[in-house]
Structures are given as structure tokens and as C-alpha cells.
């Protein structure tokens, strides 16, 4: 725990924005520190984002979706759209450089009424203009063709807009972990469980008070997602932008259903109701359905029976054979919309060395481009940008034992026998992978879970939970009663045996 640290640039926030900026800054001879208030990176919006990379009709669809009800409808010429188009190939490239597993997927936007055909055609037209892959493949398809491509889709669908390759499916947190791993390898320092509590100035340096001491820095990047407005306020650095918050609920289905749909299936959002069923990169089907209402409490992540039922109903409207019995997990994500309806990437008018970074959804695709903008801004504000000679642009992910061939598995075990010891049997995750996750920064059960898939299977850590706690306790040198699920107050085991009897 450092009492006083100094840095050239302090990034506050370890979501996709902060991570992308950290990685970008790590190319230069700059002392960069990233602080994050949670116990791990990617615990805010990035944790529950769909986190795909979009192009083509998916890009268009998300713009229409997020501009619902706006006067004049979505603007495909604005800076946000341009950022998506420009950033897509950069982000795609990063997936390869940083070893982020991903797969190319298509989108099928179905309709049950001919009245929606013109709207679908409109989407198709814009999709061709904004496509990084084969724009000529984007087309309207009839019921017969739809049935051939997606046999399990609802028989009520009479047609669809089909874009065979417009999505790069990935596990969003893996993208953040990859950026973070690479940034750290290239010299960026990161400190978790560190929250910015106050801001002041001292001889031209900015001083940030945190729960773990003071940080002196020249520049501050506010990349705090859901908290960006309040952090900016704390620093007296908010300009004319406001937040509203919306919520979406996601359900994950048993792996048995893999292959039930091949593309991302959706409908035109109607009356606030949004439905999506899609295969995720790991294979699990997921559905995200229900209203994306404006919510009051951005920190309320509870699900309700009503939202469950809406989600099950919505998923069935798309794929009738999806049974709620096959849902193995559900969770909620809160996201932010801002009053400018655009990325906010600018030095505060009140403090030019305090740069606010607010991504407008979808945030994953434009994140590397926005990171480059931030570096340019820092340069304009006087930060010396000298490139490192030994910047390593590539990163290797944690080996995925479950996906290796038997020969590859055997070889890996020979190098490190811990890769032969399976800990999570639902997802076939080994001790080797778990130890590696801890080496890369996991300090909680969720930290291991999101880096390795352990505890994400059908028994939801029923069997591996005790083993994960033991490994964390051993590797981090902390008592098992200090191990948490997701940091903060989320300790898992509260007492040792007989401790409660002593109290009596």
C-alpha cells in the first residue's frame, strides 16, 4: 500500500476505456498509473456489456436502438458513427495482437409483419455503407430462406434482414484483461481497491486523495463509467453533460443448447421491448430481453420476477424451443447514456489537465480509437510523447485447457503438471489456469471466474468453490475467511469452526 505515489498520467477507472487508454499510453515513455475502486478491472459496465465488436447491420441496429425516440432518428453521419467505422478494423486487429478469442458471427433481424420491411431495408442500406466485411452479402431474406439458415427460429417470422458477417463475438472481459495484461507488461502500474476521494492542486501538480494515500500527477483521465459524472463533480471538472441510466438483463443457457441458433437473432425494438438471442463465443446461448427502461439507481443491480418473465417471454418470441429450465445464470447490467449522445473525450473547461472520457454505447468497438484520441489530447496539453523502443504489442492469453487437443493438453501438462489437475469440472478448468489468473491480477473468485471460466458452468461453483477459495488463500497468503467473491464486503466464509461457540 503506497502512501504517496507520483505519476505523469493517472487513469481513474479500469473498464474498457481505462484499459484501452492504459495500453495506448504504454507505447510511450510515460509513467502511467491506473487506479480502480473495485477489487479487479472490468467490474462496472464492462462486466455486463454484450461487448461485441460491431460492423455492418449490427452497427446500424445499435445506433437505431440507442437513438430510439430521438427527434430526427439516428444520425449515421455523426462523429460517433464515424468512430465506429474507423475503429472497427483497429479493434479487430487488436483481438489478434492480444490473443482475444473471437468468432465471426452474423445478424438476423426478423420481422413478423410486412410493415417493417421498409425499415429493415433501410437498415440494410446503411449497413452496406458501414461494413468492414462483405457488404454485398447483406440482404433481405424470405421465410423459406430464413428457415434454412435458422431452423429453430419462430415460425411467426415472415422475413428478415440477414447480414452473414457483422459481429465479432468475444467475451468482453477478456478484451479488458488482454489490454490490461499488455499495458502492465509494457510498464503501466495498476492498483486495485483504490478510490478517488478528493482532488486538489499543488504547484501545478494535481493531487488525488484516495483511500490508500495520495497520488501526485500531471494529468488525470476520468474513465469511470457509471461514476464519471460524480467523479468529475468531485474534481470540479464537469462540463455540460448529464447521464441517464438504463438496465438490461441477460440470461445464459446450458451448453447443451449450443447450435440452436447460429446468428444473432433480434427484432426491431418495439414499445421499449428489446429482444435478442445469440450464441456467445464460448458457445453458451444467451438472451437479452425485456425493457431497457431508464432507471433511477445506477447501482441497483437486482433482478425481479417481472423482468425474468419478460425475458423468458421475449426469448421464446424469437426461439420457441428455448426453455427457462435451461437457464443456468442470469444477471443485470446497467449502462449509461449521456446528454450529448456522443463520445465525450475532452479536457474539462475548468481544468485542462483533467480529461473526461465517456464512451457512448456501443463502447467496445470505438475504445481503441478513443484511446488514441486521448493520447493526442495529452500531447496537445503538453505531455511529451516519446515512443518506447521496446514496446511489445502482443500478448498471449491464459491457455484454455478445455479447447486444446489431447496432444496439446499432454504437452502442457508436461511443462506444468498443474495443468493436468482439473478443478472446475463443469467447464474443465485446471489448476494451472487458475494459478495463472491469479498471477495476472485475480484476487477474488470472480476474478478467477472471468479469466478462466471456472465457476461459470452448470453447478455454479458448487464443487469447485471450496477449491478456488483454498487456492486463493494459498497463493495470496490470506486466511480463507478473507477471500471474497467480488471484493469489498463480499467475503464468502465468515467464521472459522468453533469461533461462534467461543462467543457464547
Amino acid at each position, binding site marked *: 500500500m503506497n502512501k504517496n505515489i507520483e505519476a505523469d498520467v493517472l487513469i481513474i477507472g479500469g473498464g474498457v476505456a481505462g484499459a484501452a487508454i492504459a495500453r495506448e499510453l504504454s507505447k510511450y515513455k510515460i509513467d502511467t498509473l491506473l487506479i480502480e475502486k473495485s477489487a479487479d478491472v472490468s467490474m462496472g459496465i464492462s462486466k455486463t456489456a454484450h461487448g461485441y465488436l460491431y460492423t455492418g447491420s449490427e452497427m446500424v441496429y445499435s445506433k437505431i436502438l440507442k437513438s430510439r425516440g430521438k427527434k430526427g432518428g439516428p444520425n449515421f453521419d455523426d462523429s460517433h458513427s464515424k468512430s465506429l467505422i474507423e475503429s472497427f478494423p483497429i479493434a479487430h486487429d487488436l483481438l489478434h495482437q492480444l490473443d482475444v478469442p473471437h468468432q465471426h458471427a452474423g445478424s438476423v433481424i426478423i420481422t413478423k409483419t410486412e410493415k417493417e420491411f421498409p425499415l429493415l431495408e433501410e437498415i440494410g442500406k446503411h449497413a452496406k455503407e458501414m461494413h468492414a466485411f462483405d457488404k454485398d452479402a447483406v440482404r433481405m431474406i424470405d421465410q423459406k430462406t430464413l428457415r434454412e439458415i435458422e431452423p429453430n427460429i419462430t415460425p411467426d417470422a415472415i422475413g428478415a434482414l440477414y447480414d452473414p458477417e457483422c459481429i465479432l463475438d468475444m467475451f468482453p472481459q477478456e478484451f479488458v484483461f488482454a489490454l490490461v495484461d499488455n499495458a502492465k507488461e509494457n510498464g503501466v502500474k495498476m492498483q486495485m481497491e483504490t478510490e478517488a476521494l478528493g482532488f486538489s492542486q499543488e504547484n501545478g501538480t494535481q493531487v488525488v486523495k484516495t483511500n490508500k494515500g495520495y497520488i501526485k500527477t500531471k494529468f488525470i483521465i476520468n474513465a469511470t463509467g457509471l461514476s464519471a459524472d460524480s467523479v468529475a463533480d468531485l474534481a470540479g471538472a464537469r462540463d455540460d453533460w448529464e447521464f441517464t441510466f438504463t438496465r438490461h438483463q441477460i440470461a445464459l443457457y446450458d451448453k*447443451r443448447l449450443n447450435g440452436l441458433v447460429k446468428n444473432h437473432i433480434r427484432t426491431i425494438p418495439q414499445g421499449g421491448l428489446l429482444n435478442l438471442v445469440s450464441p456467445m463465443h464460448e458457445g453458451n446461448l444467451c438472451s437479452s430481453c425485456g425493457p431497457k427502461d431508464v432507471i433511477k439507481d445506477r*447501482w441497483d*443491480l*437486482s*433482478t*425481479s*420476477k417481472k*423482468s*425474468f418473465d419478460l425475458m423468458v417471454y421475449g426469448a421464446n418470441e424469437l426461439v420457441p424451443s428455448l426453455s*427457462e429450465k435451461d*437457464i*443456468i*445464470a*442470469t*444477471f443485470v447490467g446497467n449502462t449509461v447514456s449521456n446528454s450529448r449522445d456522443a463520445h465525450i473525450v475532452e479536457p474539462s473547461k475548468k481544468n485542462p489537465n483533467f480529461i473526461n472520457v465517456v464512451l457512448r454505447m456501443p463502447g467496445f468497438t470505438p475504445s481503441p480509437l478513443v484511446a488514441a484520441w486521448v493520447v493526442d489530447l495529452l500531447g496537445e496539453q503538453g505531455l511529451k510523447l516519446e515512443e518506447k523502443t521496446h514496446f511489445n504489442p502482443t500478448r498471449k492469453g491464459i491457455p484454455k485447457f478445455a479447447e486444446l487437443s*489431447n*496432444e496439446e*493438453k*499432454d504437452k502442457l*501438462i*508436461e511443462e506444468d*503438471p*498443474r495443468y*493436468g*489437475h*482439473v478443478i472446475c*469440472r463443469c467447464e*474443465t478448468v*485446471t489448476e494451472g489456469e487458475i494459478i495463472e489468473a491469479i498471477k495476472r491480477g485475480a484476487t477474488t473468485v470472480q476474478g478467477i471466474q472471468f479469466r478462466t471460466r471456472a465457476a461459470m458452468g*452448470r*453447478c*455454479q*461453483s*458448487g*464443487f469447485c*468453490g*471450496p477449491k478456488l477459495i*483454498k487456492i486463493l488463500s494459498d497463493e495470496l497468503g490470506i486466511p*480463507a*475467511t478473507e477471500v*471474497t*467473491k*467480488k*471484493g*469489498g*464486503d*463480499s*467475503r*464468502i*466464509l*465468515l*467464521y*472459522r*469452526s*468453533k*469461533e*461462534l*461457540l467461543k*462467543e*457464547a
Partner: protein
Amino acid sequence: MIKQEIDVAVIGGGPAGLATAIKAKEAGVDNVTIIERADYLGGLLHQCIHNGFGLFYFNEDMTGPQYAHRFIEKAMDTGVDSMLKSMVLKILPNRSVVVSNREGISYLNPKTIILTMGCRERTRESLRIPGTRPAGVFTAGTAQRYVNLDGYIPGKEVVIMGSGDIGMIMARRLTLEGVNVKAVVEVLPYVGGLIRNEVQCLHDFDIPIYLKHTVTNIHGPERINAVSIAEVDDKWQPIEGTEQKIDCDTLLLSVGLIPENELSRDLGIELDPITGGPVVNSRMETSVQGVFAGGNVVHVHDLVDNVTWEAEQAGAFAASFAQDGPPPATPDITLRAGENIRYTLPHKISREGGVTIYARVMEPQIKVRLELGDIYSKNKKIVKPSEMIKIELSEDDIKNIDEKNNKLVLDCKSRE
């Protein structure tokens, strides 16, 4: 990579795996190997430190570990082999078993496979209980492991959802550790587990039980701090206005066990959607020839004694298969569930030899007569879904079934 030819591969070394392996070895099979992912044999018995095991098999009242050790010792004495800390990754179509452990990947080529993988617990997520997803929510079996094997107490103000045996056992166990067990919440109008446990775990310790109630919400941002419960109607739907909040720091779930048949699916084995386990005949053979199964992987038992007997059946017939190949095919009799019967096992009965039939009723009933075709009839005062019915049919009983009759139905009829 190691390749090994063996006679019988037993997947899972809990009570079923032990019993089945010992039986196969006793029948004279050369190489019987148990593949077990923990670093000890005995499975979940080690965490069941309460008594009540072996009452029928040994005529003794033992704890889980004691019961396990009888079989572990016998397994060693009879020469059963075992691969510990070893996980079966996959069973290939040619019946080769792919195993991973710290030595590397092994391919075992057995003549026969016996599946004894047991079951897993139903989770909060699959019940879709609304609310937040804080720490402090455990399935009862996992909590039992923490308390009895690892030496930790999950929390001190506990609510238990579900009055299955594991839930009731943990209610008592935690009370003995100084925990305040504030409520057991059960959705049915009656207790889910054995009557013995209802008395010895709940009544004896004055633990309040809320029948016809369910947990409707989980509260707490990072660690659970309360649950909401409500009364339910006949369709298990919460009744408006009956909600109440119970402060707690831990929620235990004892809401069902699910036979773990992932590997069975690898082999394309036919599964019964009601039991969750393989369709089996009276040799405990699955729909894939030479692959047998026994214990909780076939259907969830309440008494480990029955697990042992059932697994011994599987072991005996698996041994015959390994030594002599498949027996001559005979037209089997299909066993069906009739009135108020949820399921019957085995699904097919051979006309040769006797058979032990297991069944469960759908609803509790008093003053009943169990009727199996016209070859068996027995009066019972009370039947409950949580107490398995066991019917022993002798060779003669089966011979009394008409040759032209290839179906047998078990009914549970009211005597009133």
C-alpha cells in the same frame, strides 16, 4: 500419453463406484480401475459426519466416513485399482476413456464401463430467485463441505430454502456450531426429506419451518443481508401481501439434486427425463451395450445402503460382460409408472432371475396399496415422494408374469 487396456472402468469413486468395483473384482475380473477426481475415494460420504448410514446394509448405525472406510478397505483388499485426482474428460465413441491428471493425458480402453458419477445440486441461478447476486448464498452440500471438511462456518444468521435431507441435516449441524438458523422455507405443504430428519433435525432443535413458502428475493449488495419470503398458492406462485423479510447473512439452498450425466451424453446414452439418469435394464445396463450405471447418477437415492446394493448389481453384470461378452438377448418386460407413481426403475426387466424395483410416488398418500401388475401387492400406511419404495421380486415372481405380457405397471392405489 498413456494408453491402457483394462477390463472394467468405473467412473467416480463414491459409494456407488466403490461397491460396483468391489463386486466386479469379487466376480473375478482382472483389472478394475476407479477413476476419481478427488484425491481420496469415498466421494461425498466424508462430509456426511452424521449417522444413519449402514442401518440396512450392515445392520449398524454408522457415520458417512465410517461407511466409506468399510468399502475403501475392502476395495484395497480385493485389489481394485484407482486413479485419484484424475478427471475423465470424455468418453469416445469407441468407448475409450480420456483421463487427465498431473501425469498427463491417458487413454483407458476398457471392455466395460460403469458410470457412477453421482449428482450435483440445483443452484439458485437455475431457480431464478430474483434479487442481487451477493456472496453468502450456498447450496447445502457445498456448505456441508466447508463446515465438516474445511473447518469454516459460512455465516451466523442462516435461512435454509428447501427441506430436503441435506437442508435439514445442515440446519442441525449449523445450530450445533452456534449458528442461529432462523427458518427453513419449504414450498410444498410437507417436509421434503425423511421423517427421521424432520424430527431429529428440525423439531428437536426448535427450528421454525415455513411450509408452503418460498424465497422471493435475495437482498444485499455484496454479502447477503436478508431474504424475502412469501406464502405460495397451489401453483407455487407467491401470494400477494404475504411477503415478509428475514434478516440473515447466509442462505442455504437444499432444492434438489440432479444426476450428473454429461459423460453419458458423450456416449449417446438414452436418458429418462423424469429421473435425469440413464434408461437401464435389470442388469443396470444402459442403452449402450457394455456400459452400466448405478447409484445417484441413475436416480437420486435417499439411503446409501440402496446405492450400494444397486451399484453391486451393476458391478456383477458388468463383470459378466467383461468376462463373457453380452448375454443372449431376451425380450425384456417394460416397467411403467402408473397411478400416483412418479418413476420406476429399472426401465426394463429381464425374464431371467429376480430384480429389485425402485420407485417414488408423485404425491404423499395414506392408506394405499402398491400393485405391480398381478404379481405383487402390498398395503402401506403412508407413502411420501421423499421415501423411496423398494420392491424385491424373486425369480419365481417374474416367472409368474404371463409370457404374452411384456408390460408391467406399478400403481399406488387408495384403499379408502
